[in-house]
C-alpha cells in the first residue's frame, strides 16, 4: 500500500515532533531539518531509521545528505515506495 504525500508528511511530522518536541503542525515541507528544526546528525539518523520502518522504504546513507528540507524527505519517501 502506497502512502500519499499528505500521509507521508503527517507521519514524518509525527516522528519529528516526537524527536524534537516541536508541534507536529510546525513541521511543514519548506522547513530545513538543520536550520529550522535544529536537528543534528544523530537525531536525523534516528528520524531516518523510524521513517524507514514507518513507510517500509530504504533511505541509503548517501541520500540522507540530500534531504535538506522536510519536503525533500517527503518526495524521496514517496518516490521510494514500491
Amino acid at each position, binding site marked *: 500500500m502506497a502512502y500519499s504525500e499528505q500521509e507521508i508528511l503527517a507521519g514524518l511530522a509525527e516522528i519529528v515532533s516526537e524527536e524534537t518536541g516541536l508541534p507536529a503542525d510546525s513541521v511543514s515541507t519548506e522547513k530545513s531539518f538543520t536550520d529550522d528544526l535544529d536537528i543534528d546528525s*544523530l537525531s536525523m539518523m534516528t528520524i531516518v*531509521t523510524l521513517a524507514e520502518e514507518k513507510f517500509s522504504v530504504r533511505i541509503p546513507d548517501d541520500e540522507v545528505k540530500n534531504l535538506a528540507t522536510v519536503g525533500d524527505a517527503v518526495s524521496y519517501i514517496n518516490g521510494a515506495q514500491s
Partner: protein
Amino acid sequence: MRDVVVTGLGATTPLGGDVASTWQAVLAGTSGARPLDPAWVETYQLPVTFAATLAVPAADVLPRPEIKRMDPSAQYAIVATREAWAHAGAPDVEPERLGAVVSSGIGGIWTTLEGWDTLREKGARRVLPMTVPMLMPNSPAAYVELELGARAGAHALVSACASGAEAIGYAAEMIRSGRADVVVAGGTEAAIHPMPIASFAASRTLSTRNDDPQGASRPYDTERDGFVLGEGAGIVVLESAEHAAARGATVHGRIAGIGLSSDGYHMTSPEPSGRGQIAAMRSALADAEVAASEVVHVNAHATSTVVGDLIEARSIREVLGADADHVRLSATKSMTGHLLGGAGALETIFTILALRERTAPPTINVTSPDPELVLDLVRDNPRELPHGPIAAINNSFGFGGHNVALVVTSA
C-alpha cells in the same frame, strides 16, 4: 583541605516525586512496594510479583523527546537533578569549576534489552542510533553534565549497591582537592525489568512475600527473607564551604568523612566478620575527625537479607563500642525498597534530613526484632535526635564486596 557542604537535595523515589513528599512518606512509615504488571508475572513466571516502583512516573514529568532519548536511569537522574539544582538556588559557578558524578549500579538495562529485541526481531537497520549513548553506564552522569554545562569533569563510579554513596564520596573529594567548587552528585537506578528480577530471584536475594508486598522489606525482623527491588534517584548539590558562604547559600549538612574498602572475599556474600565494613566506617570517622561519641544516628545499608543485616549491625557495634548505645539506627529500605545504585545517594539525603530535622526515620515491618540485633533500632515511628552539633554514618555495601561509609555532620 576544603570543607564540603550540601546545598541542594533532589529525588524521585517509590515514595514520592520529590524530596519533600518522599521524606513525609518516610516519617509516616509508608511502604513503596506495589504489585508488578500481572502480564510480566504470567508471561515470565516470575517468582517475585512486586517491587517498589516510582511514585511519579518520569513520563509524567519530562517532555516526550527527553523520555525518548534517555534510558529510564538517566530520566530519573535528570528529574532529581533539576530539583536539587533549583533547591540549591541554581548556583552561579564557572563551568570549569562545576562537576557531575552520577552513578548507576546496573546501567541502561531497559535500553540494552530493547535494542537487542529490535535487532533480533527487525534487523540492524531498525536499531536506533541513540541506543548505545542511552545504555552506557555513564549516560546519567553525561546527561547531568550536559544539562548544567559542567566542565570540571563528569564521572560514573560503579560499585553495585554502593554506587550512589561512592559517587557522593568522589564528588566530595573533587571539592576537597580543589578540582571543583560545586559538584552535582548521586545515584540512579531503573532495573525493575523481568530479567534482573529473574536473576536476583535466582540468587535468592529477593523477598518472595508475594501475599504481602508492603510487609516484605523488614530489615532486622526475624521473618525477613530478602530485599525488595526499588527504583529511583537521589541527587545532592555539594559545594565548598567557602563557595556556599560567599553566595549566602543555605547549608543543609556536611559530607565530613569518606571511608572506602573492599572485602576481597566473595562476589555476593558479605564477609562474615565484617572487617571490610568496619574498615570503611573507621576510616570515614577518622577522615571526618569525628569521635564515636559524636555519632547519634546510622542509616544502615540493611537490605532485609538474612545474613547481611546482622553482619552490618555487629560491624557498627564493633566500630562504635559502648557509644553505639546512644545511636538511633534506621533502615529506610523497609519503606523505599532497595534502589541499588540509587540507594546510597537517597539514604545520604535521608541522613542529611535526619540531622537537619533532628529526627531519625522509622524502620517499618519489624514485628519481631532479631534477638541478635545489638543496636537501638528506630521502629514504626520517628525518634528525636539531640540538639547541638551531631554526626551520622550512612553505610552502603555492594555486590563485589564494595563498602562505602559516609560521615555526615549537621550544618
